Protein backbone atom coordinates (compact mmCIF):
# COMPACT_ATOMS: atom_id res chain seq x y z
CA UNK A 1 0.00 0.00 0.00
CA UNK A 2 2.69 2.44 1.06
CA UNK A 3 4.92 1.50 -1.83
CA UNK A 4 2.26 1.93 -4.52
CA UNK A 5 1.32 5.22 -2.88
CA UNK A 6 4.82 6.65 -3.17
CA UNK A 7 5.08 5.31 -6.72
CA UNK A 8 1.92 7.22 -7.59
CA UNK A 9 3.44 10.39 -6.13
CA UNK A 10 6.55 9.99 -8.25
CA UNK A 11 4.28 9.60 -11.26
CA UNK A 12 2.46 12.80 -10.31
CA UNK A 13 5.82 14.55 -9.88
CA UNK A 14 6.76 13.57 -13.42
CA UNK A 15 3.41 14.85 -14.71
CA UNK A 16 4.06 18.14 -12.89
CA UNK A 17 7.48 18.47 -14.52
CA UNK A 18 5.97 17.72 -17.94
CA UNK A 19 3.25 20.36 -17.40
CA UNK A 20 5.83 22.99 -16.39
CA UNK A 21 8.07 22.17 -19.35
CA UNK A 22 5.23 22.12 -21.88
CA UNK A 23 3.87 25.42 -20.52
CA UNK A 24 7.26 27.04 -20.99
CA UNK A 25 7.48 25.53 -24.47
CA UNK A 26 4.06 26.99 -25.34
CA UNK A 27 5.17 30.33 -23.90
CA UNK A 28 8.32 30.18 -26.00
CA UNK A 29 6.35 29.45 -29.19
CA UNK A 30 3.83 32.26 -28.51
CA UNK A 31 6.74 34.59 -27.79
CA UNK A 32 8.44 33.66 -31.08
CA UNK A 33 5.25 34.04 -33.11
CA UNK A 34 4.22 37.40 -31.67
CA UNK A 35 7.63 39.03 -32.10
CA UNK A 36 7.63 41.84 -34.63
CA UNK A 37 10.58 43.00 -36.68
CA UNK A 38 12.26 46.07 -35.25
CA UNK A 39 13.60 48.92 -37.35
CA UNK A 40 15.88 50.78 -34.97
CA UNK A 41 19.16 49.71 -33.41
CA UNK A 42 20.15 51.58 -30.28
CA UNK A 43 23.39 51.27 -28.37
CA UNK A 44 23.45 52.23 -24.70
CA UNK A 45 26.61 52.61 -22.69
CA UNK A 46 26.28 52.68 -18.92
CA UNK A 47 22.51 53.02 -19.32
CA UNK A 48 22.65 56.13 -21.54
CA UNK A 49 21.65 55.83 -25.16
CA UNK A 50 24.73 56.77 -27.17
CA UNK A 51 24.18 55.69 -30.78
CA UNK A 52 21.20 55.04 -33.01
CA UNK A 53 21.19 53.24 -36.33
CA UNK A 54 18.57 52.03 -38.75
CA UNK A 55 18.43 48.27 -39.09
CA UNK A 56 18.52 48.66 -42.87
CA UNK A 57 22.01 50.18 -42.63
CA UNK A 58 24.85 47.94 -43.62
CA UNK A 59 27.74 48.93 -41.44
CA UNK A 60 30.54 47.78 -39.21
CA UNK A 61 31.59 50.05 -36.38
CA UNK A 62 33.75 49.89 -33.28
CA UNK A 63 32.09 50.88 -30.02
CA UNK A 64 34.82 52.24 -27.82
CA UNK A 65 34.22 52.44 -24.06
CA UNK A 66 36.18 52.61 -20.83
CA UNK A 67 38.09 55.38 -19.07
CA UNK A 68 41.09 55.05 -21.37
CA UNK A 69 39.14 53.86 -24.43
CA UNK A 70 40.52 50.40 -23.80
CA UNK A 71 37.29 48.48 -24.51
CA UNK A 72 36.24 47.65 -28.04
CA UNK A 73 33.14 45.88 -29.32
CA UNK A 74 32.72 45.61 -33.08
CA UNK A 75 29.05 46.02 -33.98
CA UNK A 76 27.82 44.78 -37.34
CA UNK A 77 24.45 45.55 -38.96
CA UNK A 78 23.94 43.46 -42.05
CA UNK A 79 20.87 42.24 -43.96
CA UNK A 80 18.49 43.46 -41.26
CA UNK A 81 20.35 41.69 -38.47
CA UNK A 82 22.60 42.96 -35.72
CA UNK A 83 25.46 41.18 -34.02
CA UNK A 84 28.76 41.76 -32.25
CA UNK A 85 31.53 40.50 -34.48
CA UNK A 86 34.36 40.76 -31.99
CA UNK A 87 35.12 42.20 -28.58
CA UNK A 88 37.97 42.36 -26.12
CA UNK A 89 35.80 41.69 -23.09
CA UNK A 90 36.76 38.73 -20.88
CA UNK A 91 33.60 36.61 -21.25
CA UNK A 92 32.75 37.10 -24.98
CA UNK A 93 29.09 36.37 -24.29
CA UNK A 94 28.06 39.22 -26.61
CA UNK A 95 30.11 37.75 -29.45
CA UNK A 96 28.52 34.36 -28.91
CA UNK A 97 25.00 35.83 -28.98
CA UNK A 98 23.03 35.00 -32.13
CA UNK A 99 22.16 37.90 -34.48
CA UNK A 100 19.08 39.88 -33.37
CA UNK A 101 16.45 41.57 -35.52
CA UNK A 102 13.15 41.52 -33.61
CA UNK A 103 11.58 44.26 -31.50
CA UNK A 104 12.71 43.94 -27.90
CA UNK A 105 15.72 41.71 -28.50
CA UNK A 106 19.00 42.71 -26.88
CA UNK A 107 22.65 41.82 -26.80
CA UNK A 108 24.33 42.72 -23.55
CA UNK A 109 28.02 43.04 -22.81
CA UNK A 110 28.14 43.17 -19.03
CA UNK A 111 31.91 43.78 -18.62
CA UNK A 112 31.77 46.82 -20.92
CA UNK A 113 28.28 47.91 -19.77
CA UNK A 114 26.95 47.98 -23.33
CA UNK A 115 23.38 47.13 -24.28
CA UNK A 116 22.53 46.79 -27.97
CA UNK A 117 18.80 46.61 -28.53
CA UNK A 118 16.46 46.45 -31.48
CA UNK A 119 13.26 48.46 -31.14
CA UNK A 120 10.30 49.42 -33.21
CA UNK A 121 9.86 53.11 -33.84
CA UNK A 122 7.15 54.60 -36.02
Amino acid sequence: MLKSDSLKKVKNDLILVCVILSLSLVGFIIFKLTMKDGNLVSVSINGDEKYKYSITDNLETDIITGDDDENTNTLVIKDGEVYIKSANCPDKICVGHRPISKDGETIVCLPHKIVVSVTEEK
Partner: protein
Amino acid sequence: MKIETKKITVLALFSAVAIIFSYIEAILPPIWSAIPGIKVGLSNIVTVALLYKFSLKEAAIVAFIRIIIIALLFGNVMTLIYSIAGFVLSVTIMAILKRTSLFSTVGVSIAGGVFHNLGQIIVAMILLQTKEIGYYMIVLAITGTVAGILIGIAGNLMLKYSNKLRI
Protein backbone atom coordinates in the same frame (compact mmCIF):
# COMPACT_ATOMS: atom_id res chain seq x y z
CA MET B 1 6.16 24.77 28.18
CA LYS B 2 8.96 22.29 27.70
CA ILE B 3 7.81 21.50 24.17
CA GLU B 4 7.63 25.20 23.36
CA THR B 5 11.20 25.79 24.51
CA LYS B 6 12.45 22.92 22.42
CA LYS B 7 10.61 24.14 19.36
CA ILE B 8 11.98 27.67 19.73
CA THR B 9 15.50 26.27 19.95
CA VAL B 10 14.98 24.00 16.96
CA LEU B 11 13.55 26.80 14.84
CA ALA B 12 16.45 29.06 15.84
CA LEU B 13 18.85 26.31 14.81
CA PHE B 14 17.16 25.92 11.44
CA SER B 15 17.15 29.71 10.98
CA ALA B 16 20.91 29.75 11.55
CA VAL B 17 21.38 26.96 9.00
CA ALA B 18 19.21 28.80 6.46
CA ILE B 19 21.17 32.04 6.94
CA ILE B 20 24.45 30.19 6.46
CA PHE B 21 23.12 28.59 3.26
CA SER B 22 22.11 32.04 1.97
CA TYR B 23 25.52 33.41 2.85
CA ILE B 24 27.35 30.55 1.11
CA GLU B 25 25.30 31.11 -2.00
CA ALA B 26 25.93 34.87 -1.91
CA ILE B 27 29.71 34.44 -1.91
CA LEU B 28 29.75 31.73 -4.60
CA PRO B 29 30.20 32.94 -8.19
CA PRO B 30 26.99 33.00 -10.30
CA ILE B 31 26.16 29.74 -12.04
CA TRP B 32 25.49 31.30 -15.41
CA SER B 33 26.47 34.94 -15.74
CA ALA B 34 24.63 35.45 -19.05
CA ILE B 35 21.27 35.22 -17.29
CA PRO B 36 21.11 36.79 -13.86
CA GLY B 37 18.96 35.25 -11.17
CA ILE B 38 19.77 31.59 -11.69
CA LYS B 39 20.43 30.14 -8.28
CA VAL B 40 19.93 26.83 -6.56
CA GLY B 41 18.46 28.56 -3.55
CA LEU B 42 20.21 26.43 -0.94
CA SER B 43 18.28 27.99 1.95
CA ASN B 44 15.07 26.54 0.54
CA ILE B 45 16.32 23.14 1.72
CA VAL B 46 15.41 24.37 5.20
CA THR B 47 12.00 25.64 4.06
CA VAL B 48 11.12 22.28 2.47
CA ALA B 49 12.38 20.29 5.46
CA LEU B 50 10.45 22.45 7.95
CA LEU B 51 7.28 22.32 5.87
CA TYR B 52 7.30 18.55 6.25
CA LYS B 53 8.71 18.43 9.76
CA PHE B 54 6.23 20.93 11.21
CA SER B 55 3.88 22.97 9.04
CA LEU B 56 3.55 26.03 6.86
CA LYS B 57 3.69 28.34 9.90
CA GLU B 58 7.14 27.21 11.07
CA ALA B 59 8.57 27.06 7.54
CA ALA B 60 7.30 30.57 6.78
CA ILE B 61 8.60 32.04 10.06
CA VAL B 62 12.10 30.66 9.56
CA ALA B 63 12.21 31.72 5.90
CA PHE B 64 11.03 35.20 6.84
CA ILE B 65 13.66 35.58 9.56
CA ARG B 66 16.33 34.44 7.09
CA ILE B 67 15.21 36.90 4.40
CA ILE B 68 15.15 39.85 6.80
CA ILE B 69 18.57 39.08 8.29
CA ILE B 70 20.20 38.45 4.92
CA ALA B 71 18.70 41.67 3.56
CA LEU B 72 19.96 43.63 6.58
CA LEU B 73 23.45 42.15 6.31
CA PHE B 74 24.08 41.99 2.56
CA GLY B 75 21.14 43.34 0.63
CA ASN B 76 19.10 46.43 0.06
CA VAL B 77 15.41 47.31 -0.28
CA MET B 78 15.31 46.01 -3.85
CA THR B 79 16.71 42.57 -3.08
CA LEU B 80 14.36 42.41 -0.08
CA ILE B 81 11.29 43.01 -2.29
CA TYR B 82 12.45 40.34 -4.75
CA SER B 83 13.14 37.84 -1.98
CA ILE B 84 9.79 38.36 -0.29
CA ALA B 85 7.84 38.03 -3.55
CA GLY B 86 9.62 34.78 -4.41
CA PHE B 87 9.21 33.47 -0.88
CA VAL B 88 5.47 34.25 -0.59
CA LEU B 89 4.58 32.58 -3.89
CA SER B 90 6.80 29.53 -3.40
CA VAL B 91 5.76 28.85 0.20
CA THR B 92 2.08 29.25 -0.69
CA ILE B 93 2.17 26.84 -3.63
CA MET B 94 4.22 24.33 -1.62
CA ALA B 95 1.75 24.40 1.27
CA ILE B 96 -1.18 23.90 -1.12
CA LEU B 97 0.45 21.03 -3.00
CA LYS B 98 1.56 19.37 0.21
CA ARG B 99 -2.02 19.45 1.46
CA THR B 100 -3.29 17.67 -1.67
CA SER B 101 -0.95 14.74 -0.86
CA LEU B 102 -0.64 14.15 -4.59
CA PHE B 103 3.06 14.88 -4.87
CA SER B 104 6.26 13.75 -3.18
CA THR B 105 8.60 16.15 -1.40
CA VAL B 106 10.52 16.56 -4.66
CA GLY B 107 7.37 17.44 -6.61
CA VAL B 108 6.34 20.02 -4.00
CA SER B 109 9.84 21.47 -4.06
CA ILE B 110 9.80 21.71 -7.88
CA ALA B 111 6.60 23.75 -7.77
CA GLY B 112 8.18 25.90 -5.07
CA GLY B 113 11.26 26.55 -7.20
CA VAL B 114 9.26 27.49 -10.30
CA PHE B 115 6.87 29.75 -8.36
CA HIS B 116 9.78 31.42 -6.58
CA ASN B 117 11.11 32.49 -9.98
CA LEU B 118 7.63 33.47 -11.11
CA GLY B 119 7.26 35.80 -8.12
CA GLN B 120 10.58 37.49 -8.84
CA ILE B 121 9.75 37.90 -12.54
CA ILE B 122 6.42 39.53 -11.68
CA VAL B 123 8.18 41.97 -9.35
CA ALA B 124 10.81 42.70 -12.01
CA MET B 125 8.07 43.38 -14.57
CA ILE B 126 6.33 45.79 -12.19
CA LEU B 127 9.46 47.58 -10.95
CA LEU B 128 11.20 47.86 -14.33
CA GLN B 129 7.96 48.47 -16.26
CA THR B 130 9.01 46.12 -19.04
CA LYS B 131 6.97 43.07 -19.95
CA GLU B 132 9.83 41.74 -22.09
CA ILE B 133 11.41 40.39 -18.91
CA GLY B 134 8.50 37.96 -18.78
CA TYR B 135 10.23 35.95 -21.48
CA TYR B 136 12.98 35.14 -18.98
CA MET B 137 10.35 33.04 -17.25
CA ILE B 138 10.74 30.40 -19.95
CA VAL B 139 14.35 29.86 -18.95
CA LEU B 140 13.63 30.32 -15.25
CA ALA B 141 10.84 27.70 -15.33
CA ILE B 142 13.37 25.13 -16.46
CA THR B 143 16.12 26.19 -14.05
CA GLY B 144 13.53 26.38 -11.26
CA THR B 145 12.56 22.78 -11.98
CA VAL B 146 16.16 21.59 -11.81
CA ALA B 147 16.78 23.57 -8.61
CA GLY B 148 13.53 22.20 -7.17
CA ILE B 149 14.61 18.60 -7.75
CA LEU B 150 17.96 19.18 -6.01
CA ILE B 151 16.35 21.09 -3.12
CA GLY B 152 13.66 18.41 -2.72
CA ILE B 153 16.22 15.61 -2.45
CA ALA B 154 18.38 17.63 -0.04
CA GLY B 155 15.30 18.62 1.99
CA ASN B 156 14.37 14.95 2.34
CA LEU B 157 17.86 14.18 3.61
CA MET B 158 17.77 17.05 6.09
CA LEU B 159 14.42 15.80 7.35
CA LYS B 160 15.73 12.26 7.70
CA TYR B 161 18.89 13.22 9.61
CA SER B 162 17.17 15.78 11.84
CA ASN B 163 14.68 13.08 12.83
CA LYS B 164 17.52 10.67 13.44
CA LEU B 165 19.22 13.21 15.71
CA ARG B 166 15.83 13.79 17.38
CA ILE B 167 16.02 17.50 16.71
